């Protein structure tokens, strides 16, 4: 039975030297041992031989981060929710890295240039006039993309939006961090959105065009 502690008790025990601290760490470890499998079983089967080692590694890293970042806990949530949040970040970063470490992402690391296949519109239900109109629109959009996005932004968008790669992994390969990459992508999206508005192009109409009706 793990004793219930409120936030003040968790902080007090973890900051006290000796037995109180050891006991609090041991209790937090037990809570993580119970909760992590519920979260991670959606990522890795508990039958996988790597599962137990992963849980052990995540707990160890989480406890270290919790101790090192106790001063940042503001008490706006339960202490255990805050600790779980740290464990989730540690665990998913590790799982994402394992899953993506051998996947190449063109244009991010100066590696091989693979031809990406083109997106093809279904043509059967489109009248010739509509097809011409759509072709013109595509030419405009492709010109806007070429003018507004840098090569790195395009490569990052390809990895994120087409390959479904995680931000953390793309950021690492670009020599940046996840937060900065999100900002970079937000700036690019915003610039494109404003350019489309200046060109008088409606996003709703463009969405219709790409909806594969």
């Amino acid at each position, binding site marked *: 039975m793990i004793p*219930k502690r409120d936030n003040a008790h968790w902080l007090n025990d973890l900051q006290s030297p000796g037995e109180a601290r050891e006991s609090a760490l041991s209790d937090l470890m037990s*809570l993580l041992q*119970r*909760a*992590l499998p*519920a*979260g*991670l079983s*959606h990522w890795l089967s508990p039958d996988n031989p790597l599962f137990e080692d992963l849980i052990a590694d995540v707990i160890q890293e989480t406890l270290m981060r919790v101790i090192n970042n106790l001063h940042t806990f503001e008490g*706006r*949530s*339960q202490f*255990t*929710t805050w600790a*779980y*949040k740290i*464990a*989730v*970040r540690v*665990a*998913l970063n590790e799982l994402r890295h394992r899953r993506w470490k051998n996947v190449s992402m063109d244009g991010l690391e100066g590696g091989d240039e693979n031809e*990406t*296949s*083109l*997106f*093809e*519109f*279904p*043509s059967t239900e*489109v*009248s*010739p006039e509509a*097809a011409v109109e759509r*072709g013109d629109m*595509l030419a405009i*959009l*492709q010109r806007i*993309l070429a003018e507004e996005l840098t090569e790195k932004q*395009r490569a990052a*968008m*390809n990895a994120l*939006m*087409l390959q*479904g790669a*995680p*931000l*953390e992994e793309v950021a690492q390969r670009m020599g940046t961090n*996840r*937060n900065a990459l*999100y900002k970079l992508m*937000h700036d690019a*999206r*915003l610039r*494109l*959105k404003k350019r*489309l508005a200046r060109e008088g192009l409606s*996003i*709703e109409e463009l*969405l219709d065009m*790409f909806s594969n009706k």
Partner: protein
Amino acid sequence: MKHFLDWLKQIFSPPLQTDPLLPPLIRSLADTKERELTCDEVHALLDQFAEAVRRGEDAARLMPLIQAHLDMCPDCREEYETLLHMMSVPD
């Protein structure tokens, strides 16, 4: 006659092709806002957001910027969902 010519054009015209990035990019532009929280800002508030959801509060309305980021960012969304799974385990 005109219909016949149109039909021929349609049969023999190559399918329209474009940059494969365009469809997902245009979809993401529809949800792009002038002000968006970053991943770090969302991470700092994710525990409060998840607790509000667990209490049955309308967290998306109370913290719309967090909800907008979770809708836009698959990494943060995965972390939020994993956190909720962990919180569902009784102490």
